[in-house]
């Protein structure tokens, strides 16, 4: 009985050695905590796809606006 108690006490004592040091990551509550994302216009356009000047937001928006207006059949078909 005494040996069982000793083994149990040893296991409890050893469990303390397993504790991993934890440090709190400084964070701002309510702000995005994940990885940063890149912008669509920062990519090189695909060879066979729509074209824009890499890194130029205005040129990316211009080409995507043309694509948006492609959804408007009154302008796409009748003009």
């Amino acid at each position, binding site marked *: 009985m005494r040996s069982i108690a000793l083994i149990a006490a040893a296991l409890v004592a050893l469990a303390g050695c397993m504790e991993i040091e934890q440090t709190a990551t400084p*964070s701002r*509550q*309510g*702000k*995005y*905590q*994940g*990885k*940063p*994302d*890149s*912008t*669509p216009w*920062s*990519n090189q*356009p*695909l060879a066979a*796809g*729509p*074209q*824009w000047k890499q890194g130029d*937001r205005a040129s*990316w*928006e211009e*080409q*995507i*606006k043309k*694509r*948006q*207006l492609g*959804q*408007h*059949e*009154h302008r796409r078909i009748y003009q």
Partner: protein
Amino acid sequence: MARMKFLVDAERCIECNGCVTACKNENEVPWGVNRRKVVTINDGVVGAEKSLSVACMHCSDAPCMAVCPVDCFYRTDDGVVLHDKDLCIGCGYCFYACPFGAPQFPQAGAFGLRGKMDKCTFCAGGPEADRSDAEFKKYGRNRLAEGKLPACAEMCSTKALLGGDGDVIADIYRERVARRGVKGAEAWGWGTAYGPPPKGAAPAAAPAGGKS
């Protein structure tokens, strides 16, 4: 500055589910998750049946963002609401907060295991390297980084589902409604959406206090 939005024209949607299929195929969405779904009201009632394609509406003040306990949501420069799956703990708060039922949870495991949240990304991927395999596996295709619009909107056969800059697609919709012969204040609002009140019906009671 573009604010990416979806707009659905209930007069045009024919409930073909082409948008649902396009989304599922383009993003290889896991089994049990539908990022987009078609909702039909007055199903089978002749002349009154309307269908709407619903997914994440990329809210300007998104409730999912507000309730997330690990702050895994962010909004891109072009107004798309995205999230980091590496941070998501699958708690489901966003599901309860969203009025559109956009957040979905894959349930591939046993014992009701709930995976990390998955939702419409406006085909804008997520916080991994653009157009990378890692991004595709976690979030689906990044069509915006290819200079394209979401697959669901581009695939819509009747162009009931419009996707793009809110100002541009609102102009398209406004011009459409005007061509239908609806003018002025009738182009928008309750009467246009739900029809005029039935003849003989009592007018709606004025709110208490006389102010709205």
